[in-house]
């Protein structure tokens, strides 16, 4: 199928006729809805949104929520979604053998990304399942002898919720506070460890503010005290250098769709030397070392492996590109808009996650105004509720700053033009919203807002 198209490509055929005759030959519609609706002039007044049209999409700046599927990953997945549909656990025929080989290669690719052995990788349905399995599984296995867990206040909801469930089962959980920059205090961690502590769970890169914890030091402390160290590496894998042996990590969760891979797949790294035992959450036929039974979704696994291999190869290049864009975004906004605060310690931060608080502007209204940019305030998990994000509250941000924060997520595919567009739009909208804000007016007149006695109605 493709060779025919490639031959036509080689003959320098007009691309339009190539695709048209290709599609007609297969009885498909030849009218792709490309530009049937002409794109309106969006140099029109600020506030008008051309994304009201059906096929115009906003600029994507939400890489922490999810990332687009890299075409190179899709290319590797395609055979396993068409021809090679065998169950990798079928031992008796070629369909099974070939798929099993592909799954093994993917396992190795993911292991190489984090410096692990392929046998230590378990495939799950995502980082949430990996987090649940590791925390609940390890805690329940060692329940008789140890019953204390340490985590932080800025963890992902699935970890906080798993700890809450364990608390109801009789465990004790310590939630470590973070400093204003979002980093935990290592002395506090040392002080919190008891003889009955079984697990410490601290995420590598925070999904809301992007701070990077000092994994090496935390790992060292945990190893000295013979406590298991679990880290949620969903936002970190493939973005910063990780090595489970250097950092003394015993368990790590990885998410496929944060790595430019498919959604619905994740991995859990479980150390074998020294062995980490855990009780499985999903039991059945004993697949994946008994830790996660169920047919391994070969197409998704192959995609995640390819994404991991790609990330390992492109790590430096992507990091440089994203750092450049991040600098451009932050400098651009801070030089044109006053009273903008970046949340998170700038010395320990992943550049692709930029969380800014704009004073005197409400975050939701700024999000609504920036209709042509796909952004988020807080994480996707908590954006349904109207509460300010618990992560920002843990940083000690006051309520008004927590409410006015926006998260810009830069990724591999973001371009400089998109960043420039966003900077210009942010400047325009923040200025406009501040002009409408009475608080801004009062601030300009020199009134100290904290001294105001607001009347109750």
């Amino acid at each position, binding site marked *: 199928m493709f060779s025919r198209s490639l031959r036509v490509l080689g003959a320098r055929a007009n691309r339009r006729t190539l695709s048209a005759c290709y599609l007609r030959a297969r009885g498909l519609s030849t009218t792709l809805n490309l530009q049937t609706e002409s*794109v309106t002039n969006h140099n029109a007044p600020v506030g008008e949104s051309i994304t009201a049209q059906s096929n*115009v999409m906003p600029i994507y700046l939400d890489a922490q929520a999810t990332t687009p599927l890299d075409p190179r990953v899709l290319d590797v997945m395609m055979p396993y979604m068409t021809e090679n549909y065998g169950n990798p656990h079928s031992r008796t025929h070629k369909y099974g053998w070939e798929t099993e080989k592909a799954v093994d290669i993917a396992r190795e690719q993911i292991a190489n990304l984090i410096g692990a052995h392929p046998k230590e990788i378990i495939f799950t349905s995502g980082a949430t399942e990996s987090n649940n399995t590791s925390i609940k599984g390890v805690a329940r296995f060692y329940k008789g002898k140890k019953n204390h867990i340490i985590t932080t206040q800025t963890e992902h909801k699935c970890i906080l919720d798993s700890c809450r469930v364990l608390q109801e089962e009789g465990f004790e959980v310590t939630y470590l506070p973070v400093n204003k920059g979002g980093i935990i205090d290592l002395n506090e961690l040392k002080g919190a460890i008891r003889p009955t502590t079984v697990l410490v769970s601290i995420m590598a890169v925070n999904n809301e503010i992007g701070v990077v914890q000092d994994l090496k030091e935390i790992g060292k402390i945990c190893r000295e005290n013979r406590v298991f160290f679990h880290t949620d590496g969903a936002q970190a894998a493939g973005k910063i250098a990780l090595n489970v042996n250097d950092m003394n990590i015993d368990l790590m969760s990885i998410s496929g769709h944060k790595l430019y891979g498919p959604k619905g797949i994740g991995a859990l790294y479980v150390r074998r030397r020294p062995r980490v035992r855990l009780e499985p959450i999903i039991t059945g036929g004993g697949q994946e070392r008994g830790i996660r039974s169920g047919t391994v979704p070969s197409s998704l696994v192959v995609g995640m492996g390819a994404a991991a291999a790609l990330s390992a190869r492109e790590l430096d290049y992507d990091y440089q590109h994203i750092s450049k864009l991040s600098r451009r975004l932050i400098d651009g906004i801070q030089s044109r808009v006053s009273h903008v605060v970046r949340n998170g310690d700038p010395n320990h931060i992943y550049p692709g996650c930029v969380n800014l608080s704009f004073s005197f502007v409400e975050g939701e209204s700024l999000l609504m105004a920036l209709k042509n940019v796909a952004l988020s305030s807080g994480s996707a998990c908590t954006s349904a509720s109207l509460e300010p994000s618990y992560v920002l509250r843990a940083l000690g941000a006051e309520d008004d700053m927590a409410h006015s924060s926006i998260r810009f997520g830069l990724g591999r595919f973001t371009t400089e033009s*998109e960043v420039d567009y966003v900077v210009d739009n942010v400047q325009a909208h923040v200025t406009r919203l501040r002009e409408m804000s009475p608080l801004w007016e009062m601030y300009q007149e020199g009134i100290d807002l904290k001294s105001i006695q607001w009347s109750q109605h």
Partner: protein
Amino acid sequence: MSTKQSQILHLYRSSLRAAQRFETYNFRKYFYRRTHDRFHTMRNETDSRQVEKAMAEARAELEVMQRQGILNKMFSHNRTVIESDPHYASGARRFAV
């Protein structure tokens, strides 16, 4: 120009053209920039084995980009806000429909 050099140039130009054929703005820009940077980093490489390896990788990537370019065209019908704005993006492709 030696045959090796002309081969590399042909590969480079084909890769750039394949990158330009993506419908999705972000992929098009990324693959164009990536191809350009990959070839430029290998520019001053003298070890012939490294060059051969890089060329083999480049050929494989070219095939992937060609296939995915076609697939992208078959399934995409969205435009990004920035594509048609001349002030920001030179989003125009070489072979605009």
